[in-house]
């Protein structure tokens, strides 16, 4: 499993009812169900990832999360939006939907303020390609990149409280403690626990 997903999994309470938006092939959900006693439900738009989930027995609804979520208010304890926010067409409404159907939201994204990306754009004048953002500009699924500061502004504007934050290094693992000094410059990504 991707190391950043282990960080996300670590923030999900045991035994909770979890919705994973953009669940891919269900790696995170399988970890949560098998190792953490959660009840898991996925949403995934891609046909192949959908079939992969079905083949391994992950409950998955095929849907485009940009079109809103067909779930009742607070139907889930935790809604995970992992490395997906930057790929949706309308991040703010998606974030609102996350907080509508879940009591708690866990959102992770790559930090476009990371020094390596700033260097690529600022010094070299090139759209950055890195381990966390491995696509060239014309083939990237990421259309709404933001920095840690940008995201915190959005969360604040949406009236959300940050209940916890883990910074991620370039390898996707939890970043070393010194990154906390200048997160927007030193972290390659972040995972937020959001509450209302």
């Amino acid at each position, binding site marked *: 499993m991707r190391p950043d997903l282990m960080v996300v999994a670590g923030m999900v309470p045991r035994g909770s009812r979890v919705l994973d938006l953009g669940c891919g092939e269900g790696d995170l*959900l399988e970890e949560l169900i*098998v190792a953490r006693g959660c009840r898991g439900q996925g949403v995934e738009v891609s046909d192949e990832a959908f079939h992969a989930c079905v083949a*391994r*027995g992950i*409950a*998955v*609804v095929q849907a485009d999360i940009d079109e809103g979520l*067909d779930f009742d208010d607070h*139907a889930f304890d935790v809604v995970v939006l992992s490395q997906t926010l930057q790929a949706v067409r309308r991040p703010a409404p998606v974030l609102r939907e996350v907080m509508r159907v879940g009591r708690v939201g866990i959102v992770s994204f790559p930090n476009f303020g990371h020094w390596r990306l700033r260097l690529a754009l600022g010094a070299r004048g090139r759209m950055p390609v890195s381990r966390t953002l491995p696509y060239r500009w014309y083939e990237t699924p990421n259309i709404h990149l933001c920095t840690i500061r940008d995201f915190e502004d959005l969360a604040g504007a949406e009236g959300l409280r940050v209940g916890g934050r883990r910074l991620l290094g370039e390898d996707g693992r939890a970043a070393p403690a010194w990154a906390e000094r200048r997160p927007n410059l030193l972290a390659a990504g972040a995972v937020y626990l959001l509450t209302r």
Partner: protein
Amino acid sequence: MGVSVGRVETQRAVLFTADRPLALDSGAVLAPVEVAYETYGRLDADRSNAIVVCHALTGDAHAAGHHGDPAKRGWWDSIIGPGRPLDTDRFFVVCSNLLGGCQGTTGPSSTDPATGRPYGLRFPLMTISDLVRVHRALIAHLGIERPLAAVGGSLGGMQALQWALDAPGELESAVVICASSRLSAQNIAFSAVAREAIMGDPDFHGGDYYEHGVRPDRGLATARMLAHITYLSEESMRRKFGRRLQDRETPRFGFDVDFQVESYLRHQGASFLRRFDANSYLYLTRVMDYFDAFADPVATARALEGTSTRFLVVSFDSDWRFDTAHSREIVRTLTTHGAPVTFREVASPFGHDSFLLDIPDYHRTVGTFLQHVHSTPAGVP
């Protein structure tokens, strides 16, 4: 994909008798109740590989294989057989004719033991739970405690859903295809017109046409023609018929069959008469009208909270009889109560009838889902 199950025979069992009658939701009791059913594949030693197929409005027990003429296959032959999604090399598939039907199971055309005459409209009104009671009696009769799945499209999907609600945890899984948890006003309106056509036929005789030696054929054929329109999509009709005329170049300027689509509908109506009873049509459409699976929120919560039954819900994007919104409603309620749900809308140009067709993406979804349910005990993903 795969081959057919080959030659099969319909079997019969008397599941309820005068000493042990069937108690219906309406309060009425019914006995005897005989059920026609077919089975395909072999039941495992531990009886854990049974899949119950629930048929739609006008289906019957003959779901797969043939009765002697290999060209005439059961109504769901495309999905049942060795190597097919309902893989008879792995699964023991059971399909029975519905209570209230007319193809071997007790229904309004059966003899009422109290009078010695066909029931007609004296047959009791039924609910989907009543249909499920009979399915459960049949699987008990076959020595099966926990079916791997109940699978059905349209009215069949409603039975699979109701089964999961009536007997929480009894099913390993429920596969609910192009169905609804409750009909819309538009759905009920179509049923109402169909019933008007039947009951307004001069040969209906208050449902006692059996004794008059006639049948309300015009009404029943009209009902079928109307229903058939709702089973196809606009696009599939355009592809199939367009505005082409039947056997001619120019219009006849009359009210006889002139367009190909008219001829097709007339054929559908006529061939339906050979296999279906008008009273059964009235009763089974009424069962659907009254269906409201999640009407009681307390019962729904009790049935679904912590259930071990896994759900697969499938809709088709061109189905306007029970469009995707109906399936989404089912998914929403199931997920609200924490039940694990797999759902997708499959692309198909063929409308409601898509569930009967060999659409690879649809078959792959059902087949993969059932394979996984079969390979893992409950609660393990």
